[in-house]
């Protein structure tokens, strides 16, 4: 378990690692690698359904595709060829890469070998089976071994482009051009080619008919985009500087579920989907905490309450649970209203099982979620001695009885206390 914990701590770095391409263009607060990964996983799952692809394989390919960046950094396709000087660099970035085929091949070989080494360094201590599973998912994405790997790779490119449009805006078309050029080189899946048209319609007013379903999916993806920019409310209340976002938290939990859930013989596809969906309601409710309704307005009073775990009667707990449950359900229903009915039902069911712990996956995930929050708290505490994780420890010990989760808690105690 010590090795698993170290792995979780390492991948946490991706929540602070901003994507390089947009940073070079002077964009402040672009998405992090972790946030990008989570939207890729969602988009691959939802769009892949239209192609009858294996959702589990798609999600794993998306989750693993940038893990190597913990050590390699965000190696954009421009690595090694950008001018040093700022202005010249910006000018260079206005266009996609133009190179002879031989050079492209050599650069790709070098990048692949660097990233593979980094991935193996990261996963090497997880045990052969887990290491292999993560490596295989990454290879599937890299080498396009399966239809899912190929599809996930194309979705990855689209997510990056949407982020560029989001930040650079439709009025700065020139800056988004390299993303479009790359897309037009890379994408050949019929559904995704149509999706490109839908994006052009949405942002550039291209005339288009009969793509209702894809337009609805684009709207859904742009709605869940909000979780990339939404800081976790609890950390705000605790005065953490630059706290993780909701998407960042989803990233940690989903990877933890993948690694720890393997040994529990749970339905892995269901577990990963559930982890992706578990906080989606935040899109409309905002990120909420159990403290929200009890915090007084005065600062001293607030601080006093936040230092401890909330003590409530069973009746109060039930009342708050029901209130939150209804709000979150309403939010999810609104968010998924235009999705295909079967997908909508699935997402709502996954969320319900998580919230009510009514399946093995839901029971495990709800406990693991608290461990993920605690781990983040411990990392904040390590950086800032004024921050105390005490209430999170209380919460975790109260809620956890799953052996794998309890093992993880013990390991965290050993490491951090």
């Amino acid at each position, binding site marked *: 378990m010590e090795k698993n914990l170290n792995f979780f701590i390492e991948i946490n770095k991706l929540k602070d690692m901003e994507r390089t391409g947009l940073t070079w263009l002077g964009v402040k607060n672009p998405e992090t690698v972790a946030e990008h990964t989570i939207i890729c996983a969602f988009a691959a799952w939802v769009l892949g359904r239209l192609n009858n692809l294996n959702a589990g394989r798609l999600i794993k390919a998306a989750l693993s595709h940038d893990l190597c960046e913990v050590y390699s950094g965000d190696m954009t396709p421009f690595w090694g060829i950008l001018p040093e000087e700022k202005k010249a660099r910006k000018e260079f970035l206005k266009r996609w890469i*133009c190179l002879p085929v031989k050079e*492209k*091949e050599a650069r*790709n070989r070098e990048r692949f070998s660097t990233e593979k080494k980094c991935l193996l360094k990261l996963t090497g201590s997880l045990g052969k089976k887990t290491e292999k599973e993560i490596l295989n998912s990454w290879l599937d994405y890299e*080498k396009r*071994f*399966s239809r899912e790997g190929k599809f996930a790779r194309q979705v990855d490119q689209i997510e990056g482009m949407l982020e560029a449009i989001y930040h650079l805006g439709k009025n700065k078309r020139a800056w988004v051009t390299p993303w479009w*050029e790359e897309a037009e*080189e890379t994408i*050949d899946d019929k559904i995704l080619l149509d999706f490109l048209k839908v994006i052009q319609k949405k942002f550039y007013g291209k005339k288009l008919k009969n793509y209702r379903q894809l337009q609805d999916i684009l709207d859904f993806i742009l709605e869940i985009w909000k979780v990339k920019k939404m800081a976790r409310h609890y950390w705000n209340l605790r005065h953490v500087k630059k706290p993780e976002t909701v998407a960042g938290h989803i990233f940690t939990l989903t990877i933890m579920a993948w690694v720890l859930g393997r040994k529990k013989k749970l339905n892995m596809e269901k577990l990963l989907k559930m982890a992706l969906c578990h906080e989606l309601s935040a899109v409309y409710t905002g990120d909420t905490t159990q403290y929200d309704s009890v915090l007084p307005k005065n600062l001293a009073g607030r601080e006093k309450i936040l230092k401890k775990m909330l003590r409530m009667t069973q009746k109060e707990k039930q009342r708050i649970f029901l209130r939150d449950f209804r709000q979150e359900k309403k939010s999810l229903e609104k968010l998924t209203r235009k999705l295909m009915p079967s997908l909508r039902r699935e997402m709502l069911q996954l969320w319900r099982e998580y919230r009510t712990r009514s399946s093995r996956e839901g029971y495990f995930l709800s406990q693991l979620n608290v461990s993920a929050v605690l781990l983040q708290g411990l990392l904040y505490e390590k950086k800032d001695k004024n921050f105390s994780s005490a209430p999170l420890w209380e919460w975790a010990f109260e809620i956890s009885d799953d052996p794998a989760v309890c093992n993880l808690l013990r390991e965290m105690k050993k490491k951090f206390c």
Partner: protein
Amino acid sequence: MPEEKTFYLTLEGLEKLKKEYSDLKNLKLSKTKGEVPSIWESEDLNPEYLSFQEDLSFLESRISELEYILKNAKVIKNPPKEKQSVISLGAKVTLEDSEGRINEYMVVGTLEANPNEGKISSESPIGKILLGHKTRDQIFVTSPIKVAYRIKKIKYQSC
């Protein structure tokens, strides 16, 4: 399974897929019998790929996918000499943009595409634009801002 379609492959690509198919069939047979598959000892196989195939559910779906592909595969042949000034599948194309930057692509079928290595699919927007054009033609990449290229050279590998 995708809708009925033709898969264009280079001869080398087709041979590779045939070999993959027969290796995977052997692998599946050995797995069912619980034996250590002899193909593990082969030196010319990609160990990364074989490791990937250990997942039995993937193994089975890949075998049926390969059966479908091989049934619908068509080998890319170089066009006759007089038509080699026109871009078709298998062509290596050198392009020059308005600033004199040189870009190169090889137009291949979807199964062999790897844009990171310059191999672009004939079904991608750029692949579709290139097909049918001749040397000195001007083409426009259709992104929100049109990017113009002049086709400098078209080359086919010698068979």
